[in-house]
Each structure stands twice: as structure tokens, then as C-alpha cells.
């Protein structure tokens, strides 16, 4: 918009509709661009955690180090808040960003609850029946939820890269779980999910430079 007269002029129907479409698209692009930063951040954190926990498990021979996963949201969310705080001092919270935030918040709640319940069931199962097989399914459940959350974020943002990345993470992670990896090496499924997230973040950021 060039000057005051231009800004206050009446428009044709086509011009009006173009302006509305452009504004809404700009809004979506802006939030998708910002989401790239968060995908990158969580991807790096997830990759780091999976490798760190794997090294600790391998070195000590104990899978109790898996409890460190509960520290991921405890560390990630405050850091994300710091990251967000600096980005848009004039703040206009977009409906799409609220939806994407809700999707990942829901994933976090589901993942933590499923993990906690699995641990409880495992303890109960082990002490009562000597069962420990419940833990084996946890990686598959969480990576599937993770892929679903990523894919639905892509739907909300209307971004094919994110949709495909979500599908690759969920179905790819599940396939790796069933076909390739076993035991402690299953932690590499989260490394895979983290690296896909990092790649998604980098691609999205480069799309909306």
C-alpha cells in the first residue's frame, strides 16, 4: 500500500478478494516459517536425547536410563518459551499457531501418559506375573503418535513437506521397529524421528526465507 489515498480507495470485487486471499496466505506463510524453527529445535533436542540415552544404556547395561525421557518436555518447553519470547514482540497470535501448538501439546500429554502407564503396567506385570514385554510396544506407540502429530500439523499449515515428513516418521519408525531394530537399538528410531524433524525444519525455513 503506497500512500494514504491509495490505502483508502474503494476496490473492485476482484481486488478485494485478492487482498483478503493474500493477507490470509501471508498469515499462514508467516506461521509456517516460524514453525520451521520449532521443528528444528525439537528435532535437535530429540536426536540429542535419543543418542545420549542410548550411550548411557549401552555403557551401563541398564535400560532404566529411559526414564530420562521425562526430562525432555521438562527441558524442552521452558527452552521453547525462551525461543518464542524473542521472536515477535508485537505478538499477534494466529489461530493456526494455536491449533499447531494444541496438536503438539496433545501429543506431549499422550506420550508422557502412555510412557508413565507403560512403566506402571510393566512394574505391576513384572512383580505379579513376571511380564516385561509391555515396554517393547512403547517405542512404536510413541513414534506413531509423533508421526501423526507432525502429519496433522502439516495439514493445518497446508504444507506438503511437513505432511510427508510426518508420514515418513510414523510409518517409517514403525517399520524400523518391526523389521530392523530390537532391544536398546530401538532408541535409534527416535534418532530417526529427530533427524526427520531437523530436515523438515531446515526445508520449511528455506521455503519461507
Amino acid at each position: 500500500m503506497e500512500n494514504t489515498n491509495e490505502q483508502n480507495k474503494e476496490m473492485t470485487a476482484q481486488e478485494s478478494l485478492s487482498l483478503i486471499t493474500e493477507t490470509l496466505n501471508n498469515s499462514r506463510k508467516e506461521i509456517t516459517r516460524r514453525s520451521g524453527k520449532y521443528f528444528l529445535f525439537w528435532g535437535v533436542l530429540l536426536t540429542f536425547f535419543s543418542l545420549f540415552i542410548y550411550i548411557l544404556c549401552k555403557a551401563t547395561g541398564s535400560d532404566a536410563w529411559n526414564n530420562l525421557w521425562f526430562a525432555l518436555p521438562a527441558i524442552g518447553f521452558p527452552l521453547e518459551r525462551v525461543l518464542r519470547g524473542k521472536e515477535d514482540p508485537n505478538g499477534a497470535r494466529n489461530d493456526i499457531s494455536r491449533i499447531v501448538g494444541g496438536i503438539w501439546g496433545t501429543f506431549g500429554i499422550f506420550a508422557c501418559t502412555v510412557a508413565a502407564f507403560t512403566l506402571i503396567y510393566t512394574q505391576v506385570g513384572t512383580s505379579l506375573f513376571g511380564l516385561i514385554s509391555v515396554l517393547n510396544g512403547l517405542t512404536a506407540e510413541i513414534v506413531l503418535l509423533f508421526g501423526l502429530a507432525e502429519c496433522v500439523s502439516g495439514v493445518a499449515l497446508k504444507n506438503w513437506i511437513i505432511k510427508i515428513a510426518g508420514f515418513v516418521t510414523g510409518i517409517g519408525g514403525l517399520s524400523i521397529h518391526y523389521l530392523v531394530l530390537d532391544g536398546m537399538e530401538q532408541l535409534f528410531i527416535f534418532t530417526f524421528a529427530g533427524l526427520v524433524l531437523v530436515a523438515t525444519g531446515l526445508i520449511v525455513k528455506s521455503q519461507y526465507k
Partner: protein
Amino acid sequence: MFPKLDPLLHSELRLAVMSILAGVEEADFTYLKEQTGATSGNLSVQIDKLAAAEYITVEKGFKGKMPRTTCKITASGAEAFREYVKALKKYLAAGK
């Protein structure tokens, strides 16, 4: 018979403001100014017109020590915006 286009929305800057506010929970004056590229004076006048028609609400407050004016679309504003877009589509469909 074509529906009448809402004269309040049929102005570039007011429509831009409404389009932005239609997609966000709320936005402050500085954000609207950046997004529309409008001058402070003109934007302020157009915001007052939209507020007078109760299409938006305007709240004046502080963010830290800095004054902050926040705008939010109302239910009647959202409805007027929807009707406006519907009317535009009818015009364009008839022109094809």
C-alpha cells in the same frame, strides 16, 4: 439481484485490517501497521471507524512500560466479513 457490498469493508486499508484480524485472536497496533504498511494516523482513523461500527474492539493497555493498543474482531465483525466475502464471490461468479 446482487447483495450490497458493505461500504465500511469496501476500502483497502479497512479490509486489510479486517482480513488480518479475521485470522488472529488479537493483534496490536504496531503489528497491524507493519502488516498493512499504513501510516499511524491513517491506520488510527480506520481502526476508529471499524470500532465505531462494533466490527472490532480496541483495548488500550501496557506491555511492560510501553503503551499498547490491541485490536480484536467481534462476532458481528466476523459475520460482516463473512457476508462481504460471500457477496464478493457472487459478483465474481456473475462476471465469469
